[in-house]
């Protein structure tokens, strides 16, 4: 317990320092408006990647429809806020709860399927959500929903990300997380050890949907405009790429890969037309390097052993 509190305090202190540095840099215009916007998108993407990570890496369920929950969260929170004038945070929460309810309802029948079958059904669900939103006039239809008040600030995004990391970390390193990991490792053995695998799959899926919905809300209030097509399955594939590049399970790897892959297309803008040739090429190179065990995670771990409170391994023994 003591070591947990110690790690928690270190983590909080470190994130406060990072926040202060970034905040000052933004205030003094060292990081200009364009890059601070990218920074916020990175934070939102990290929330999304971590929630996908919980489902794909920890529970071993391949979902290709995560952006649907993001869309549901984005539309629900924006719609609620614009129509009722609910406080920002409450409308974000409402959006995430709506997404979580959808996650639960979709998970109930589909999580009986395995591997590629689950991937295809979630893909289908994603497509249904996009088409459904396109046909609801109250949500702006295919033209998108405009006029969302700009309420997302850097502080909101950053601390939401920190809270997401902390909550998901706590879930993964508890009984529930162990049960989820056992589902990934061997479903039959997990059943034989008394674990209700369906229950934990749904728990993981619903939690993932909740955070995706929350991130969707942040995204909506950041962009001030959302359209259904920006949430199609290609967006889900992005999250899968972040997670796959991040390696099996690690939080640090996932955060690093998300940051790099969100930043990379922006950094490559100077290449002009060649950008979308170079970016995929880089992606391929990174993936090949990753397979050869030069993982982002192990790279980071080697560099800073004690400074990373968010690593797997020693924590089970200590908690």
């Amino acid at each position: 317990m003591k070591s947990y509190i110690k790690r928690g305090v270190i983590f909080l202190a470190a994130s406060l320092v990072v926040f202060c540095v970034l905040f000052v840099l933004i205030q003094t215009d060292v990081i200009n408006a364009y890059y601070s916007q990218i920074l916020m998108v990175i934070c939102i993407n990290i929330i999304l990647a971590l929630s996908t990570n919980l489902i794909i890496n920890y529970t071993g369920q391949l979902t290709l429809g995560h952006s649907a929950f993001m869309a549901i969260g984005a539309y629900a929170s924006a719609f609620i806020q614009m129509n009722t004038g609910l406080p920002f945070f409450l409308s974000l929460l409402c959006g995430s709860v709506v997404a979580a309810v959808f996650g639960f309802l979709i998970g109930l029948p589909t999580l009986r399927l395995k591997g590629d079958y689950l991937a295809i059904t979630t893909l289908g669900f994603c497509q249904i959500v996009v088409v459904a939103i396109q046909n609801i006039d109250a949500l702006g239809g295919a033209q998108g929903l405009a006029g969302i008040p700009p309420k997302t600030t850097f502080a909101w995004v950053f601390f939401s990300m920190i809270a997401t990391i902390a909550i998901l970390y706590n879930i993964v390193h508890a009984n529930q997380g162990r049960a989820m990991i056992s589902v990934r490792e061997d479903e039959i053995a997990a059943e034989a050890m008394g674990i209700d695998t369906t229950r934990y799959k749904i728990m993981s899926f619903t939690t993932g949907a909740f955070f995706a919905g929350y991130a969707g809300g942040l995204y909506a209030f950041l962009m001030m405009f959302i359209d259904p097509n920006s949430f199609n399955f290609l967006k889900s594939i992005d999250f899968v790429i972040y997670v796959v590049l991040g390696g099996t399970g690690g939080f640090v790897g996932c955060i690093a890969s998300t940051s790099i892959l969100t930043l990379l297309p922006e950094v490559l803008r100077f290449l002009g037309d060649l950008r979308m040739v170079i970016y995929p090429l880089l992606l391929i190179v990174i993936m090949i390097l990753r397979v050869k065990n030069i993982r982002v995670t192990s790279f980071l771990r080697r560099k800073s052993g004690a400074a990373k409170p968010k690593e797997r391994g020693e924590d089970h023994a200590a908690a």
Partner: protein
Amino acid sequence: MPLLDIENITIKFGGLTAVSDFSISMEENDLFGLIGPNGAGKTTVFNMLTGVYAPTSGKIVFNGESIQGIQPHQITKKKISRTFQNIRLMKNLSVMDNIKVSYAYQAHYSLVSSIFRLPSYFRQEEEIEKKSLDLLKIFGLLELKNEKACNLPYGQQRRLEIARALATQPKLLLLDEPAAGMNPQETQNLMDLIQWIRREFKIAILLIEHDMKLVMGVCENIVVLDYGKIIAQGPPDEIKTNKKVIEAYLGEEAADA
């Protein structure tokens, strides 16, 4: 009242009757062996006992409760635990975490107390930690607790799998070919282990095994299956000389000779 009472269970897969009219009855702390040629239906019996298959007809009563047709994870909660013919450990998890997974269903703190790390989380995690360490200690796996399960030698993996099954605190332990792939020395150690578990944990054990030395050496009662039917049942000495058993294993002429 017996601990386990199986009455005439039959299972059919389409037109194939895999097991028919199988009945046995076990008391607490009994040690039974289930043998038979390949494809006789031994593992199918285990799968019915552990809820993987529901029997087409018949009754399974365990500890005074009818248990046929309920889910595998519910069976474990009714105190029946098993190991697998082909070892099914959580390969990428540490030895310690493999054991902890078995305690998962016995922990009763909610998702909320995990997220906010409420006192119930620390209390129960500490208890699980302690129980797991104790179990690893008596199984001689304590030094290996941070090792990945897939890095253990074969014999140790079997040991860990049995330890993991015991962590669910069963009253009946089902061992599916525990000696498969073991050398004579490892088999001898396993025999000692099985007898020791029975004494120490005071549980009933039902095991499937092809290694006759092990079966004859530890079981007090042996059930012989052939083509899904029980052809003989009794203490090892009786089974050794039973004509039907020799016939099933070696063919008719050998039995006559």
